[in-house]
């Protein structure tokens, strides 16, 4: 028995060794230090060579200033969980289109969004920004919207909680004789394109569009990707649509108006729209759609939570009452399909096969899963001049090489989304194809964790912003298929983008790394003193005694009553968070991966990982034991 005991022990040691090597490196927790090392980890999605290269270049330039940045490529899912849910990161690079869209920007800066899962990933706690964000959500007047947005952009540029690196152009290819295209935020793959596109010198015909992914469900309410949106946009109509300048225009609602307080909206519907099964589209359907979305609280429709009630005035007039004014209602409605009441009444919102009857320009014809979706012209569409084509076919080709060959062979007419750099020249050389580089809204940025000192110092963030080689990234890895980003709201949105930002805030406007300026920024800091104490070439941040009065930096020229505070002053829970987090950054000696200290032990990923590993080890042993028992008894 002694032998058995001893070997079991040996096995256990082995198991523990295995388990511990599998778990994440646990940080060595040290007592609070009087200084912080300028050593950070930047999370980058592993699949994109451009972003990885951008992070590597940033790391190179930062090293020249004495800031060490480790590039850590991770799975996108992991990155989002780490940043948005656990707030356990130093910096991250990600592409998030909505981050620079006017209608979404408020959700990224509100203090209430600074919570696990909230959109305020950086932990921005700026009272002025918060107030402006709330104000923005309630402002319906376009002029006032612009004013608020401009202020928000200036404060963001001043505070640098995150900073844009580059935008990638949407690369869209279509055959040269395809005309009548219109753009929305995914370039020319817009609802209006399906309605107005035609082949030059030809009547009707089959319009073949390449989709990079199949429909995941046959339910418009479950659409989660732009590919799904593309199909449903052709099948369903909306009350309003967004024109080429991204402003809402009447569609099925030929007229709409709102009360001065922005709470009551009236929509006047056209009276000749019909469903694909011949029934007329009336106010009942619109009322039903709103009520259905509200009743089921369907994810993906943001205006739903503002709706108080819906009222049918007559057969072709609908009144929508909101609990509070909501600025982006029309933009949301441009994405909201009108559902036929007579077919959806008894259908659950999340079924995988929903009724496929819409009121759009094309009717559902057939679909072969994973291969294609075929739509045919709706002869009774209320706009008699639309659509121009007889058939709309979505071919599913996930492989972009194959997609491009299909385009070259003339088997398809329209390809959007992603084209590798190698293909750009190939398309340019092809006489039959047109390559459109569209600015769009794609936005790649570097975000800081403001909760983690010394990143709470605005001067350090400005210094790092100065070091981003925006131009080099665009010209190198991106091959010129984009542009350096020097703004917070894309110029794509015209007037809403504040053109002063790059001029007034040189760290945002700079597109080439500026070592001198970065050093200058660090020297200006009133929060920390930056110097290399231990002589390892990496700077340390030594907290300075807190100044009694916080004076705003000279560059801030925001005309709000309260000027922006130099750094987000932690108040309330934030202060507690800072106090409880006495753990400072530690770096394991041998491995380049630094393990940041978890914010709170309860959510510590290391703990979860290890316990699950232990559970697995136990399960393995139990399985083996049970099998053993069975065999023994039988034998």
């Amino acid at each position, binding site marked *: 028995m002694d032998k058995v005991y001893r070997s079991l022990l040996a096995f256990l040691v082995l198991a523990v060794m295995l388990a511990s090597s599998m778990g994440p490196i646990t940080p060595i927790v040290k007592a609070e230090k009087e200084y912080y090392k300028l050593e950070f980890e930047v999370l980058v999605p592993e699949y994109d060579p451009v972003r990885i290269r951008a992070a590597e270049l940033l790391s190179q330039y930062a090293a020249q200033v004495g800031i060490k940045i480790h590039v850590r490529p991770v799975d*996108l899912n992991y990155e989002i*969980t780490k940043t948005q849910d656990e707030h356990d990161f130093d910096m991250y690079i990600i592409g998030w289109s909505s981050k620079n869209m006017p209608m979404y920007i408020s959700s990224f800066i509100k203090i209430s969004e600074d919570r696990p899962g909230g959109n305020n990933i950086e932990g921005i706690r700026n009272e002025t920004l918060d107030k402006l964000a709330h104000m923005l959500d309630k402002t319906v007047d376009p002029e006032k919207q612009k004013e608020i947005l401009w202020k928000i952009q200036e404060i963001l540029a001043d505070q640098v909680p995150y900073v844009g690196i580059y935008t990638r152009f949407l690369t869209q290819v279509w055959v040269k004789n395809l005309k009548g295209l219109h753009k929305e935020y995914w370039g020319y793959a817009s609802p209006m394109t399906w309605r107005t596109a035609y082949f030059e010198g030809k009547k009707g015909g089959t319009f073949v569009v390449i989709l990079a992914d199949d429909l*995941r469900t046959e339910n418009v309410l479950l659409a989660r990707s732009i590919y799904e949106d593309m199909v449903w946009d052709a099948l369903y109509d909306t009350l309003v649509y967004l024109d080429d300048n991204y402003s809402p225009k009447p569609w099925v609602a030929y007229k709409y108006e709102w009360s001065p307080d922005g709470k009551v909206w009236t929509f006047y519907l056209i009276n000749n729209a019909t469903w694909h099964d011949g029934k007329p589209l009336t106010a009942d359907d619109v009322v039903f759609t709103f009520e259905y979305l509200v009743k089921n609280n369907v994810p993906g429709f943001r205006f739903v939570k503002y709706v108080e009630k819906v009222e049918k005035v007559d057969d072709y007039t609908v009144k929508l009452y909101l609990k509070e004014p909501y600025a982006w209602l029309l933009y949301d409605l441009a994405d909201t399909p009108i559902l036929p009441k007579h077919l959806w009444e008894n259908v659950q919102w999340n*079924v995988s096969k929903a009724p496929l009857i819409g009121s759009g320009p094309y009717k559902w014809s057939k679909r072969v*899963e994973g*291969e294609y979706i075929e739509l045919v012209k709706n002869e009774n569409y209320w706009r008699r001049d639309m659509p121009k084509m007889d058939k709309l076919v979505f071919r599913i080709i*996930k492989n972009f090489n*194959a997609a491009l*060959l299909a385009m070259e062979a003339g088997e398809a007419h329209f390809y959007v989304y992603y084209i590798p750099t190698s293909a750009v020249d190939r398309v340019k050389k092809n006489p039959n194809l047109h390559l459109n580089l569209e600015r769009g809204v794609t936005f790649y940025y570097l975000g800081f964790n403001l909760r983690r000192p010394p990143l709470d110092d605005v001067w350090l963030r400005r210094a790092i912003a100065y070091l981003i080689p925006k131009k080099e990234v665009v010209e190198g890895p991106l091959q010129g298929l984009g542009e350096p980003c020097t703004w917070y709201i894309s110029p794509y949105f015209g007037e809403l983008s504040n053109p002063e930002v790059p001029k007034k805030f040189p760290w945002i406007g700079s597109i080439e790394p500026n070592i001198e300026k970065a050093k200058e920024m660090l020297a200006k800091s009133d929060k920390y003193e930056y110097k290399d104490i231990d002589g390892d070439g990496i700077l340390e941040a030594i907290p300075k005694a807190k100044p009694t009065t916080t004076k705003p930096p000279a560059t801030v020229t925001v005309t709000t009553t309260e000027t922006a505070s130099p750094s987000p002053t932690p108040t309330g829970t934030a202060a507690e968070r800072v106090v409880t987090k006495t753990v400072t950054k530690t770096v394991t000696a041998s491995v380049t991966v630094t393990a940041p200290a978890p914010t709170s032990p309860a959510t510590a990923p290391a703990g979860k990982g290890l316990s699950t590993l232990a559970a697995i080890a136990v399960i393995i042993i139990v399985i083996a034991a049970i*099998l053993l028992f069975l065999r023994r008894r039988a034998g």
Partner: protein
Amino acid sequence: MGLRAYVARRTIELAISLILFMALMFYVFRLMPGDPTAMLIEETAFTSEMREQLRRMWGLDRPLHEQFVIFMKNLLRGELGISFIYQKPVADLIFGRKMLNTLALLIASHGMALLIGMVLGVWAAWRRGKVLDIASLVWALVLHTIPVFWLGLMFLLIFAVHNKWFPLSGTITPARDYAHVLEYMGDYLWHLALPAATITLIRLGGDFLIMRNTMVSVIREDYVTAAIAKGLPEKIVVWKHAARNAMLPIVTLAGLDMATVVSGAVLTETVFSWDGIGRLLYEAAIYRDYPVLQGLFFVITLVVLLANFFTDLLYAYLDPRVRYD
């Protein structure tokens, strides 16, 4: 112990292994960092409330042990759950077109490899030591070291890009109207050709080596020598008698290889955009689609265990020397 008792015991053992294995995998899947709702962010402007709502809908807000109990209950009732991404029962997703595609690809390629490997193996063993035997041996070793996805890429480069003889991706030509079922089959086979050829070539090396080595030892057995001594033509002895006996190990191995058949060929399917089980598995892992992962691993493990079980049973049945223990 009688055969019946043996079968009964093995069945119980199989069921327990399967359930325990699924329990293990349940935790391994949850160990993947991230969250199934996280991937929705980049594609659509999802707010945190919407993510919460989805989490509730998918039952991810409950404590892990509760989720586990629900999962086990469903599993015992034979339900595999509903996919997060596809909103479809996992069983429908697995046993649909994807499984057909995978089976078509792997049965075609494994079958071809087996057939060619066996013929070549017998032939090489018969003519062992000759130049061609040595050459094919070296060639088999080379095949052993070629990464399957690279060979696939090479095929694409040569046969789909430079010479447009075969399609680059997919299983059929999209949106084509077929006049006849045969036309459809032809189109499917045309798409199948390159991926199937890739796997066939890669597997050929192994199958060939096994067949050749078994054959070499079978040829030396007494009865073969005796048959030849009796004056039977050597050709007939080799191809009819010896080859048939040498087939047993390779066929058994092919049977045990069921795991690779049902788990698909992730790499080949990736290269050729072949819409099969392997791709589904990879995507489910990236999207953290737990129900799909659980369903796939359940099916794969079940097939593996059953294959082992039946092989043992067959052996026990065929060979009286094997005791049932």
